[in-house]
């Protein structure tokens, strides 16, 4: 049971990395961002390239992968998302989905369809009280918690963070103060993309890597964002870990049903608290 809880925490941490970007983009720009899959998957593939190239140095590869994703995120924001502000949600949905299609095909073009194996970069186990927990997963959970506090400080203390939080509440109000909101939206989008890449990079060693890997994870993180509330940062944190727990507990008793259970929870949440968007 301890293992189940621990695996739930790991999955929750990964879901948190990915959904925070979705939640922020939705809260500020009112854009449902399917292109998130692409920053996530590209991050993983770049990591693989770097790890193959550098042989063993995983952290450097991870940092380089995240840094490479930042300009890609900026390009997507600048040329696709920025044109969609104020459009109906359907069109943003379709346009970002189109970006995801293009990205998946580009990945298939560059890296091929074949799944890549990538092993646990640390591979040691931490033993205490008769339990052996993989250190790598502990590190993931710790990074998630640090990130949560880091983001909280960022949004409460820094001026950029404060502007973004204000824009989550009332975009037009912030614009009336003479602040160019678009610039901050672009920062938020790039931040979200980089965090998605971080999630991908950390998740890759404990899952399989293939061009369509982003899609199923994205559906899960949509569920996280809906359960946690669109644009609600603390809600996203809680719901990511709660759904991670739902997944790992379901998987313990009924392994194929794990992902479906998340959608059932999401459907129940939507029934009792429909979101007007």
């Amino acid at each position, binding site marked *: 049971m301890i293992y189940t809880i621990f695996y739930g925490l790991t999955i929750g941490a990964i879901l948190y990395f990915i959904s925070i970007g979705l939640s922020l983009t939705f809260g500020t720009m009112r854009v449902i961002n399917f292109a998130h899959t692409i920053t996530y998957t590209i991050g993983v593939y770049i990591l693989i390239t770097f790890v193959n190239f550098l042989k063993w140095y995983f952290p450097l590869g991870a940092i380089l992968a995240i840094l490479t994703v930042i300009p890609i995120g900026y390009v997507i924001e600048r040329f696709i998302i920025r044109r969609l502000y104020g459009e109906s949600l359907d069109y943003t949905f379709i346009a970002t*989905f*189109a970006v995801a299609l293009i990205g998946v095909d*580009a990945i298939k073009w560059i890296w091929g369809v074949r799944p890549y194996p990538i092993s646990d970069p640390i591979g040691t186990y931490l033993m205490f009280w008769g339990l052996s927990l993989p250190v790598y997963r502990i590190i993931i959970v710790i990074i998630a918690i640090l990130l949560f506090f880091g983001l909280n400080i960022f949004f409460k203390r820094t001026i950029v963070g404060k502007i973004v939080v204000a824009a989550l509440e009332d975009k037009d109000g912030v614009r009336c103060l003479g602040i160019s909101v678009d610039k901050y939206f672009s920062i938020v989008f790039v931040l979200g993309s980089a965090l998605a890449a971080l999630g991908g990079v950390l998740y890759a060693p404990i899952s399989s890597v293939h061009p369509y890997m982003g899609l199923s994870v994205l559906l899960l993180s949509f569920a996280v964002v*809906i359960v946690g509330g669109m644009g609600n940062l603390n809600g996203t944190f809680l719901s990511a870990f709660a759904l991670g727990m739902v997944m790992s507990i379901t998987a313990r008793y009924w392994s194929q049903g794990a992902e479906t259970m998340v959608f059932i929870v999401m459907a129940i949440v939507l029934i009792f608290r*429909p979101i007007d968007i």
Partner: protein
Amino acid sequence: MKKELSLDEGKAPCDKPIDLLAELRSTPIKEHGVIDLLGIAAFFLVITPLLSTHRITDFMIFCIFAMSFDLLYGYMGRLSFGQMLYLGTGAYFCGLFIRYVSGNPLLAILAGIAFAGFLSMLLGLIIVRTTGACFALINLAFNHIGFFLVLSPLRGITRGEDGFGVSASKFGSLSLTSRPIMFGFVLLCVLLVFYVLRRLTSSPYGILIRSIKEDETRVRFLGYNTFYYKWLTFVLAGSIAGLAGSLTALNYSYVNPNAMDVHSNVGVVFACLIGGAGNLYGAIVGGVVYMIISNLLPIYIYRWEMFLGFSLIIIVFRFRTGVWGYIQRSWEYLVKRKVVPGAMKKEAI
């Protein structure tokens, strides 16, 4: 939801449920209604020699599906990313009916439609409450659940990934296993669906659902129970998708989970957009164009997914009325008239 909901409870003077059958009977038949049907039939008959009969049958089934999606998206403005669920339900129940109950193809099709309709009645009660992205995502979630159910817990009945064969027996002289008869039958179905949807969408009911697309709150202020009409439209779209599913099962004589694949939903969205959403002709043109792209393009262009992505972006940014809107505009330009005869009023998108 908002407080205005309480308005529904008070009986406003025009809160009279619209009877769909009465609508169908009372709308006058316009003289070009027949010409349109003949035109569509001629269109499919003309393109048949260019490709094989089997392929065109497939195209026509997809057109039925595209029309069901268009009713939901183009007319009512609700983008669903899970319409495949109802297609798959139709296909599975049609197949199971033939397998376990009787080989009569017509009864099997009815069973497929009935079960898809029933499922959309149940799920519609939940789904229809949401709008926008939530509507799309909750549909996607249910589709995912359906796909999973078929694949794994119901493996005993559905045979999981392998699927099962469907062999319909003869019904009188109607043997749907022969290609030309299947072709004719599907063509009749396309015409029937087109006719029914056309009559419905040009009736007061159609105007109502298009008003819901424009501004639901105002429709509610007028005293209409919008929930009921949204639900009705959802069920109608689900049933028609079920018809398309049943026909798919009979056409391939085979059902497998691909009929419910979550990722195939993009296809129908794309078909509707490329043809022009909010227009039944658009759905048919878009359905055929999409099928040609997805069937023939991979032979010539290896990166066809990328092509699809770029064309979707171009459609969203530049070309929102789709192929049919373009044809309509050119026609207007040629005829130099404001309204095109025979065509529906163009939706403001």
